[in-house]
């Protein structure tokens, strides 16, 4: 009974918060609400018996996405009022049909939602998922946790391409910055003692917890991506605390970190072709291969996400200099 109450309150508040996130006139407020929504979503994953997803949401949704958005919101705070005013003003065809764009957009959005609902209602009565298949095949995968066996064995293809997407995103950010490494990105000049303290505590603990999640991923929720995301968050914290972090890496090491996992999947895949199929390893050495691949995923995810953050968060030079000049020295 109360169990259901938890679900209803959670679902209702997520919907309301999402609405406010999008319609909030002030960007910063909207971003904090978005972070709150991420937290509520991870509670929803918990209620839907998906601890793996909750872990990923905790590390990525609450950690990295929040940081990215907070940065984006703040650097633009000054232009906020002007932008809001311009958004309200209408011209062109919008002057003749006030609100027409909104009505069309709302209609389209509702139509999509309706189609989605119809599809859900139309689902066959009997569950037709792959739970059974995964359960019977898991023995052969080399690991005892179903999600890991899907991720790194049955559908390793998907995971390989995902790692490829990460690599592409990192290349994109580097291209946008017209650079081969992140050494030109802004590093925090004056250090804050508390922050140094926090970084010194969190870095070793993050390594410990990431190692734990990596290792336990073979038999319980956890795994390489979550571990990598936690390490990435720790690297970002280092950067924020004034250490060099990932932007201290040379082009060679950055590139190696970014490409490691993609290359490892490729290599394992080709070795697999000698046994008949690309990326197929359903035999005794499965666990070893999976652990090795996961280790490369940890490294590549950590480096890539931290690099994406450093790249996306950096400001155009003269602007940040002005900010620094105005910031008073810390009194601790």
């Amino acid at each position, binding site marked *: 009974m*109360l*169990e259901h*109450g*938890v679900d209803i*309150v*959670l679902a209702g*508040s997520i919907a309301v*918060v999402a609405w406010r996130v999008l319609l909030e006139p*002030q960007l*910063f*407020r909207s971003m*904090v609400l978005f*972070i*709150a929504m991420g*937290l*509520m979503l*991870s*509670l929803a994953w*918990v*209620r839907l*018996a998906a*601890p793996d997803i*909750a*872990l990923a949401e*905790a*590390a990525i949704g*609450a*950690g990295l996405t*929040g*940081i990215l958005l*907070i*940065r984006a919101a*703040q*650097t633009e*705070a*000054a232009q906020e*009022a002007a932008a809001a005013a311009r958004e309200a003003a209408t011209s062109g065809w919008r002057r003749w049909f006030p609100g027409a764009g909104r009505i069309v957009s709302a209609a389209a959005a509702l139509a999509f939602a309706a189609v989605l609902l119809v599809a859900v209602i139309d689902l066959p009565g009997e569950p037709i998922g792959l739970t059974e298949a995964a359960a019977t095949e898991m023995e052969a995968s080399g690991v005892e946790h179903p999600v890991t066996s899907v991720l790194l064995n049955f559908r390793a293809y998907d995971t390989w391409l995902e790692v490829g997407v990460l690599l592409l995103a990192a290349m994109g950010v580097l291209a946008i910055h017209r650079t081969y490494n992140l050494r030109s990105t802004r590093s*925090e000049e004056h250090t*804050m003692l508390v*922050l140094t303290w*926090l970084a010194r505590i*969190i870095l070793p*603990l*993050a390594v410990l*917890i990431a190692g*734990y999640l990596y290792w*336990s991923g073979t038999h*319980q*929720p*956890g795994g390489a991506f*979550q571990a990598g995301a*936690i390490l990435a*968050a720790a690297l970002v*914290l280092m950067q*924020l*605390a004034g250490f060099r972090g990932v932007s201290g890496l040379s082009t060679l090491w950055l590139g190696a970190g970014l490409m490691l996992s993609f290359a490892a999947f490729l290599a394992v895949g080709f070795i697999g072709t000698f046994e008949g199929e690309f990326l197929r390893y359903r035999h005794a050495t499965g666990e070893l291969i999976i652990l090795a691949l996961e280790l490369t995923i940890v490294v590549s995810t950590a480096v890539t996400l931290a690099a994406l953050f450093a790249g996306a968060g950096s400001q155009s030079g003269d602007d940040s200099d002005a*900010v620094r000049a*105005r*910031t*008073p020295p810390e009194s601790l």
Partner: protein
Amino acid sequence: MVMSVFLYGLALFLILNLIAGLVRVLRGPTDADRMLAAQLFGTTGVGILLVLAEAQGLAALRDVALVFALLAALATVAFVRARRGPGSSEGEAGG
């Protein structure tokens, strides 16, 4: 049985606390207030996860709480570091 009802009740109570905290995000008045509310969500979220771990019998949820507790401060750190110097909240005191 009694314990299960108690735990779900506690989880619901904590979720309502979290929702009440959202009011502070909307009201502000300064960005620091909003960030403070976000910090509150972190602590409350960890509590909810721990209670649900017990209620649903899912030990893995404690790991989720662990990760949340580890990374809860990061958004705040980013906030303090990215501020456009002092006075970033001017013009919205009525929030």
